[in-house]
């Protein structure tokens, strides 16, 4: 929330372009030098995964702090008290902008993520995804299975049940995959509601569009929903996952409506 005093539009446009450039150049250096060398120096897969995720978390945290200081955006984080337990839970968030993932990964550096198959094949990103041992969404049935299996090993996982960025001006909707994963793995869910006002880097908006006023991100970490409180759907797994999906959708939607200002 500290930023230099250049609050005008032109400055933010410049800073945004600069941010993208830093992200791109940083990504290339990381992807071509830093992460590939981890395979040489860190032979143990677990250790490499730990170091890689921590580095990604720090880099993303640093990037977020940088664009904040430059005045690209402001943000506030609520519910930090729920950050404590990072193991063994499914983090579920809405996805209004391109960069909410950056702050979320910096808040949950140990969590696993699902990475688009296309990114996995990208020359620069390949080593990052492999070193951090992130899940890739190549085949739907394997994706579901790997998410459940990973949570059962005691790790935490982050999913965006909208499946893509939110459609501006529309109520958000969740696909049933994340609720299914939580129910089948039997882990607690940590819902996170994210809002960005005015909207910035959203779907259907060019990346260089900068609103008149500085965007403010509110990241609200909600109380966890324990697996023991999941709806039972009269004993029917299909009903149960739809009810759980509804519960998660409502919890997050309620916060988004409540955050209007």
């Amino acid at each position, binding site marked *: 929330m500290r930023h230099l005093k250049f609050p005008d539009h032109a400055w933010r446009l410049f800073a945004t372009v600069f941010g993208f450039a830093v992200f791109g150049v940083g990504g290339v250096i990381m992807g071509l030098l830093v992460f590939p060398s981890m395979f040489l120096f860190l032979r143990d897969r677990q250790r490499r995964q730990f170091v890689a995720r921590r580095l990604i978390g720090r880099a993303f945290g640093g990037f977020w702090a940088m664009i904040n200081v430059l005045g690209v955006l402001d943000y506030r984080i609520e519910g930090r008290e729920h950050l404590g337990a990072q193991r063994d839970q499914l983090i579920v968030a809405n996805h209004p902008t391109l960069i909410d993932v950056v702050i979320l990964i910096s808040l949950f550096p140990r969590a696993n993520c699902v990475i688009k198959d296309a990114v996995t094949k990208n020359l620069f990103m390949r080593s990052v995804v492999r070193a951090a041992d992130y899940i890739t969404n190549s*085949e*739907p*049935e394997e994706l*579901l299975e790997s998410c459940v299996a990973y949570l059962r090993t005691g790790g935490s996982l982050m999913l965006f049940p909208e499946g893509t960025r939110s459609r501006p001006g529309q109520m958000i909707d969740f*696909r*049933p*995959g994340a609720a299914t994963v939580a129910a089948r793995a039997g882990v607690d869910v940590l819902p996170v509601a994210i809002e960005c006002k005015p909207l910035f880097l959203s779907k259907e908006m060019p990346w260089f569009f900068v609103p008149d006023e500085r965007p403010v991100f509110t990241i609200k970490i909600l109380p966890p929903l324990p697996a023991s409180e999941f709806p039972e759907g009269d004993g*029917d797994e*299909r009903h149960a996952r739809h009810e759980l999906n509804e519960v998660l959708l409502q919890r997050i939607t309620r916060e988004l409506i409540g955050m209007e200002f």
Partner: protein
Amino acid sequence: MDKENLYLKIRGILVDQFDVEEALVSMDANLYEELEIDSIDAVDLLVQLKEVTGQKIAPETFKEVRTIRDVLNALIVS
């Protein structure tokens, strides 16, 4: 497994596990709209068919699937 048995197998899964009314099931019934199965059911169906037939359906093909006939064609062709 031939087409007829495979069809019966799919119908069995739909009726027993996904609460679909048997009368609604036909070769050209739309899985998502008429039989109201969701994307997770579709994946579960895929997993079970893989166990029965030993065949995988490519994800791109599966995305195109709308009817039981499409499922059968995908399995026969692949």
